């Protein structure tokens, strides 16, 4: 029975060694993207399994950017799935384990992030939370640096107006 032929055990490789120290950052980033811990760790697990299985596709280069690219692809697939089943979307809204962090105006930073287009949220998190350079963020998203910068700019503008949205506007005098 052909399909029963055994696949060989993956050997100890550089991907496997390099993966270990990156797990905490992957979890942090996934948590900010997916909000609840279970979903976020599922994303990280799938990213790791995929990376371990696809070692043959990794031809050197930056392991961190590659892993984040995989994670983003998986997250996009996940969100497509949620979009097709909108009733499930509610579940990811709350992370009961997280402290009710607040920016002082009563508006949650997480809610501000949730409101922006995914590719803007991704860039903002890659740069601020993960401390990636514009070049690295561009590699992760597979876009030119200019695109990263315009997404970042729009993300910050949107987040600022969200956070300050309920404050009275100060009259500007030139």
């Amino acid at each position, binding site marked *: *029975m052909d*399909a029963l*032929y055994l696949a060989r055990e993956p050997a100890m490789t550089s991907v496997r060694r390099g993966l270990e120290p990156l797990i905490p950052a992957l*979890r942090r980033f996934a948590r900010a993207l997916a909000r609840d811990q279970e979903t976020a760790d599922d994303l990280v*697990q799938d990213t790791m399994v995929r990376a*371990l299985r696809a070692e043959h596709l990794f031809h050197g280069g930056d392991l961190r950017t590659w892993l984040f690219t995989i994670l983003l692809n998986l997250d996009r697939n996940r969100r497509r799935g949620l979009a097709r089943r909108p009733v499930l979307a509610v579940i990811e809204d709350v992370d009961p384990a997280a402290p009710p962090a607040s920016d002082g105006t009563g508006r949650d*930073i997480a809610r501000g992030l949730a409101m922006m287009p995914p590719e803007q949220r991704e860039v903002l998190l890659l740069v601020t939370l993960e401390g990636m350079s514009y070049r690295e963020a561009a590699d992760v998203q597979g876009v030119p640096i200019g695109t990263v910068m315009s997404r970042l700019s729009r993300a910050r503008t949107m987040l*600022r107006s969200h956070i300050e949205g309920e404050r009275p506007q100060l009259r500007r005098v030139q």
Partner: protein
Amino acid sequence: MADKAPITEEELHAFVDGELPADRMAAVESYLASNPEEAARIASWRAQAAAIRERWGAVAEEPVPERLHVDRLAVKAGRVWRKVAAAAAVAFLIGGTAGWFGRDLARTESTEFESSRQIAKALADAAIEAHRLYINEVRHPIEVRANEEHLLRWLSRRVGSAVHAPDLSEQGLKLMGGRLLPGPKSPTALLMYEGAGGERVTITCTSAGREGQTAFKWRQAGEFGALAWIEGGLAFVVAGPAERERLDRVARQIYAAYETPEAAK
């Protein structure tokens, strides 16, 4: 002079993110000193970053849960393959593979295809659905891996015609492996390729019976696209991200591989 140029929006972000070239630091700093509104904007960006780090930064300090230990997952990565391959083989042998690939074709099948054009269209739709289903599979997107030499022999035998897996490395794609699906007339072979960014492209190939040939037909469903054609008694569909030019190049390479199989090795 670099430091006399007007300050751009990009430079303000670069300043905040530590990416501003040293020779522009003084210019940006003096600009901010004399523009309080701009300085407030910059301060709000810094506050956002601080709030983001405050909210999620500590996640990286948590102990890594056991299910994410590399050794554990590495073993799993190897083991799941075997389990799934076995399960799929058994499911296939008892005819339990659901028949979803042929589902959309069932209507047309009963009245026979009126034209090869219709087959191509129906196959493209089914292939997009197969593509959508399997590209999201992380743990078992394929039944048999590319490095197992019986892959093409097996698929060829089931499809009833030689199945080739062209080298698509020029398109940045590497063969992952394949699986067998129920098809309209006979089993359908699905080959899955993967790019370095994790994007996937599938090729499905099935017998088209006595049907003639068609030109490449383009179908698009949301973010997925497919090119379908019939040639030499086989119906082909290439499905992937809706990037027509890229899929077009892939399709042409497959076409060439079937024209001159030995050259495509």
